């Protein structure tokens, strides 16, 4: 480690407790361009992300479910000529339960030493939130307690006495309602005041320990103080070491803590060992004198303190329960009678609206991008006498593929994501987890998996990242491996298009929309069923083992801010996913054009590939065209359909010996695509198996990469990749076999 050079860089601020640039850098934060570092900590679902947005204006997505911010986000703001960098830490209930998020949050405040830590709390659940506040104040006194959601509290007849709270905690307290920016100026002023203050701020010493544990803790504290005299939180460290805190013991052994000791930044290993050896020795000796329920006693003690403080600061007025909308809504959403039907209808409605509502804007975009802009570009290229292969590569290859992706993907996403986000912000999704947990439990999985699945319906890579909300490693791995069975946004267009063209066509026109929507829902439900089966299989075989840690908080319902939600979901999800799709469509379009135009033995490469794969395709009830499309589409599922269409056109064109190979398609409307596909040899079997294969095949390359990043295991990445493709081959082959019998 390069601690040597930094010892000198640190010299002049040895004694002041401001942020530690080296540690911040190690934690992934570049502190060079800002004057102050502000950390946001707090319980999950306290509106921490809303505060973050209000401070930075950066649109980080904030859903109304617990544990949404699973990794750190950062943004910055300027206030009174100072530049502040804000780090949004993961929401945690505690700092001492050794889950990944808690460790991230704790280590950041402990080792990064932010100039100000804003602890965001929920005014309606202040007592429990104070548990975290008290723990946080033990490791950093440069803190502000932000009591958020005071508007919600007011509605429940709760007011908070900020002055009493501030007196008891020894740090500034600010009341906010971040949703409408109430109290934000006060918060900014409080942040500034702490940030510029040079005096070490002394928070009230909180822990008043019971006699039988106070003595050993004090003894170790004395030891720590002797070895590391300037460490700001020696009592807390003593408690943590006595409580067998593995990560802190490691930090001590590796010299992280001794480095925090001013003047010891460059200390050699020998000194480090002398410190740590003595302290750990003492801790081991003292542990024997501790009661067995040491940890429990500490937590109880903290809660008793939190209770006392909350009693003075929280003023409840009026009747406790008049008409409670939350309870009323829960009676519907959780009811044995209505719970599942409401859930099913809600999602069916969402899918129907997505399909039905996307038609018009899709056709409109298609008309503009393909009907108008494409010929215009081609004419322009001809007039400028650009060689055919150059304009073919860029305009027919890259441009057309991208134009297709935009016109097919943008409208459904712009409908689905805002609706999904509205449900999310409303607080409905944790209720779905609550309703569904029983099923997930039977499959050996966690109810929260339903949330990650739903995220997967948008994007599997995002779904895999979202599994971090599951804090039990086994259940998390199950959720990662099975996320691919949630049809992602890149596959919806395939499902919707094929269902409308082939399944919808089986019934009279006025029923077509409904029936095709049901077919898509059916495939989605099959994905859900597969999720359960595979989860069950995994938890009973390779992943058999440790028990799960189940916890699920059901946040209060919150009326989403419609326009804000719309804006947020367009920016955060729709454009983000569209951008990713476009990035993949450009090179894929180029590849498609190339394999169609490079000839070997008088035949385009693509045709060779199709011919070669046709027998395999037939066996799976698909065809060579679809398989080639799936190979080209490994980077992104979005381009399967355009590639299929292009290949059909290519093969037909090749037969007619005309030009324009690799042009994605040449139809004037989405409706005539059906005819094109049927001419390309698509049957009802092809359509059904295509829908199934689209559900059950390998994740896209982005998702595979994300799985590797999240699991850090080649083995589980391989399982996640090859399990679905093997299953997909099996399912489609079986269906083809029975179909032909």
């Amino acid at each position, binding site marked *: 480690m390069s601690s040597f050079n930094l010892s000198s860089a640190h010299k002049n601020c040895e004694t002041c407790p401001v942020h530690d640039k080296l540690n911040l850098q190690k934690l992934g934060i570049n502190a060079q361009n800002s004057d102050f570092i502000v950390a946001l900590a707090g319980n999950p679902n306290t509106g921490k992300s809303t505060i973050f947005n209000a401070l930075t204006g950066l649109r980080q997505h904030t859903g109304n479910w617990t544990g949404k911010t699973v990794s750190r986000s950062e943004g910055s703001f300027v206030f009174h000529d100072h530049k502040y960098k804000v780090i949004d830490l993961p929401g945690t*209930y*505690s700092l*001492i*339960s*050794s*889950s990944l998020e808690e460790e991230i949050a704790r280590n950041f405040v402990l080792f990064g030493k932010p100039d100000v830590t804003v602890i965001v709390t*929920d005014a*309606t*659940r*202040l*007592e*429990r939130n104070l*548990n975290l506040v008290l723990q946080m104040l033990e490791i950093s006194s440069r803190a502000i307690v932000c009591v958020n959601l005071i508007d919600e509290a007011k509605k429940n007849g709760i007011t908070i006495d900020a002055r009493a709270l501030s007196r008891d905690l020894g740090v500034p307290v600010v009341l906010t309602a971040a949703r409408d920016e109430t109290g934000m100026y006060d918060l900014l002023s409080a942040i500034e005041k702490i940030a510029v203050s040079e005096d070490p701020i002394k928070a009230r010493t909180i822990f008043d320990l019971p006699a039988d544990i106070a003595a050993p803790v004090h003894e170790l504290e004395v030891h720590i103080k002797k070895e590391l005299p300037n460490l700001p939180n020696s009592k807390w460290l003593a408690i943590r070491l006595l409580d067998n805190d593995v990560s802190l013991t490691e930090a001590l052994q590796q010299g992280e803590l001794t480095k925090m000791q001013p003047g010891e930044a460059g200390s050699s290993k020998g000194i480090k060992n002398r410190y740590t050896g003595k302290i750990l020795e003492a801790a081991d000796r003292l542990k024997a004198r501790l009661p067995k329920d040491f*940890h*429990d006693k500490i*937590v*109880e003690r903290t*809660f*008793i303190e939190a209770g006392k403080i909350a009693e003075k600061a929280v003023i409840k007025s009026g009747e406790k329960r008049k008409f409670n909308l939350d*309870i009323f809504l*829960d*009676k519907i959403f*959780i*009811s*044995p009678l209505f*719970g*599942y039907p409401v859930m099913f209808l809600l999602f069916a409605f969402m899918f129907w609206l997505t399909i039905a509502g996307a038609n018009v804007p899709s056709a409109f975009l298609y008309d503009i991008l393909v009907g108008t802009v494409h010929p215009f570009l081609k004419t322009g290229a001809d007039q400028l006498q650009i060689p055919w292969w150059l304009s073919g590569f860029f305009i027919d290859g890259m441009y057309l593929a991208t134009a297709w992706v935009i016109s097919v993907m943008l409208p459904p996403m712009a409908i689905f994501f805002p609706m999904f986000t509205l449900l999310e912000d409303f607080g409905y999704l944790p209720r779905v987890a*609550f*309703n569904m*947990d*029983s*099923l997930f*439990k039977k499959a050996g999985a966690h*109810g929260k998996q339903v949330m990650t699945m739903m995220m997967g319906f948008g994007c599997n890579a995002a779904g895999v990242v979202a599994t971090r909300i599951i*804090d039990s490693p086994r259940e998390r791995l199950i959720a990662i491996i099975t996320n691919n069975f949630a049809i992602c946004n890149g596959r919806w267009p395939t499902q919707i298009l094929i269902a409308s063209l082939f399944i919808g066509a089986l019934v009279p026109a006025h029923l077509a929309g409904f029936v095709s929507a049901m077919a898509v829902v059916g495939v989605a439900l099959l994905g859900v069923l597969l999720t359960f089966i595979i989860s069950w299989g995994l938890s009973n075989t390779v992943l058999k083992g440790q*028990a799960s*840690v*189940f*916890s*699920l*908080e*059901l*946040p*209060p319902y919150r009326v989403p801010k419609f326009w804000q939600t719309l804006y947020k979901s367009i920016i955060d999800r729709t454009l983000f996913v569209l951008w990713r799709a476009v990035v993949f469509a450009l090179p894929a379009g180029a590849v498609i054009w190339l394999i169609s135009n490079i000839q070997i033995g008088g035949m385009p490469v693509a045709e060779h590939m199709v011919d070669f794969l046709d027998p395999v395709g037939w066996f799976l009830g698909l065809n060579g065209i679809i398989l080639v499309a799936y190979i080209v589409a490994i980077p992104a599922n979005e381009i399967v359909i355009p590639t299929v269409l292009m290949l059909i056109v290519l093969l037909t064109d090749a037969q007619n010996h005309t030009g324009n190979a690799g042009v994605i398609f040449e139809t004037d409307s989405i409706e005539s695509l059906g005819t094109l596909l049927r001419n390309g040899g698509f049957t009802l079997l092809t359509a059904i198996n295509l829908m199934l294969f689209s559900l059950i095949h390998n994740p896209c390359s982005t998702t595979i990469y994300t799985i590797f990043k999240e699991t850090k295991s080649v083995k589980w990445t391989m399982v996640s990749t090859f399990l679905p493709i093997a299953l997909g081959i099996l399912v489609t082959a079986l269906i083809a076999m029975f179909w032909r019998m």
Partner: protein
Amino acid sequence: MMFDIFKRKGKEILDGSKALLSELIPGQTATIKSISDDCQGVERQRLMDLGFVPGSLVEVEMRSPWSDPTAYRIKGGLIALRKNQACKIQICPVQ
């Protein structure tokens, strides 16, 4: 014999010596007495962090359609626990 079982069970709940959180039905309230010793490690810590500590007032708010998990109102929050967790929490019923 059947009646004996019921009587015994009823009596136990009445004096609260062995009453468990999982035995309460929605609408009932209790104070937490202790978390069973066979609930250890991360699971015990998580329960305590969520407010399931001795002395906390807990109210059963609702059950999932399939009766598991159950949502408990504790320290202002609404927390869902599975039955196999709730049966590890001993309580004193509040009338």
